[in-house]
């Protein structure tokens, strides 16, 4: 997830598929990993409940959708 000179993905309304690695239900956060291998804490209130291994669409640190299609693999 980058926000460098070339492309600000938040400003660009981009959504990035990320895989859920761990879930902190008490804090409503999940540790997620994107395609580039970078990990970040993601707000999951809009898509909970999740399980480890799920794929979510992340924008601005928030999971907006759970990608249920079995073909979507990060």
């Amino acid at each position, binding site marked *: *997830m980058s*926000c*460098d000179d*070339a*492309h*600000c993905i*938040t*400003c*660009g*309304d*981009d*959504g990035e*598929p990320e895989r859920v690695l761990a879930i902190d239900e008490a804090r*409503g956060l999940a540790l997620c990993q994107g*395609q580039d291998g970078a990990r*970040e*804490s993601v*707000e999951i*209130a*809009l*898509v909970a409940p999740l399980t480890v291994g799920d794929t979510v*669409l992340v*924008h*601005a*640190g*928030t999971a*907006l*959708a759970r*990608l249920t*299609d079995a*073909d*979507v*693999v*990060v």
Partner: protein
Amino acid sequence: MRYVDEFRDAALGRALAGEILGAVEPGRHVKVMEVCGGHTHSIYKYGVDDLLPENVELVHGPGCPVCVIPMGRVDDGIAIAREPGVILTCFGDMMRVPGSTGTLLEAKAQGADVRMVYSPLDALRIAKANPDREVVFFAIGFETTAPSTALTLKRARAEGVTNFSCFCNHVTIVPPLRALLDSPDLRLDGFIGPGHVCTVVGARPLEFICADYSKPVVVSGFEPVDILQSVLMILRQLADGRSAVENQYRRVVPYEGNLRALEVMAEVFALRPHFEWRGLGFISHSGLKLSDDYAELDAERRFAVPGVRVADPKACQCGEVLKGVIKPFECKVFGSACTPERPIGTCMVSSEGACAAYYNYGRFARERVVV
């Protein structure tokens, strides 16, 4: 990653280009607006334009969150950043948007504490790590980003973080689309709908485009094959004489959107009576502010904000570009006085801005055509 490779497949793209050629009515010039800046970026990056017949024209819409911020709001953000003890946080592209006296990046160089964040949650973390400072999040974006801000404000309240506030510049997509459709400047035949905004609001809010204006809409993904497929779906609707909202991006967008996101936005935000858009002027009910219930987290109530309207530079034609009336290269200052390194207008700032996208990718194609 699967589902990316397939949607960048060159053979699929060429096959769709052939189908588009067969679907377009000979002799009819079709103008399709891609609403979202993310689509504009993909169109130029992957050369989607080059795969379309001459009589299918893509017109770039107002859906780049950075590009529609008026100069006065940038000035307000800089004024907040210069308040003693303030840390102003914002997304990367926002730092380079020119106000009347400079950018947030220049304010930072002059001593203001301006920090780039990837999410509102990052801004809240900065607030918690600096309890003796006032941390303000400069919120921009359409309905894609607004839920993230709303959830962070709820979290700030729940965790009792009192040194955090939000300078809210969130906007909504439907009012500017209606304004464009009512504009006499522009004749459009169909719309490529904003995929990630629709992840939140669903496709239903776009139905007015079909019901009131009889134009087809296809909610689209962001890969080149997505966009080509969406153009084809629009052309087929036109050929059939239909106008409906179709969802090409079903692998991500539920037709009804994300109801929880809509609930949290309704709790935290309220519609402003009107909000200024760069180049488009004031549009009724197009901007969000914090609701009265969240007033204590509203930076506009916590700090003295000048709130002065600033006219766009005369040389800048971002308004016409945002409305799709002119192409980026038709602007008087495109590529000369206005470049991504030293932008005059907002459309040259973000890579989703039509001018920056065209400068970075499309200008070479145009040069090729001219030669």
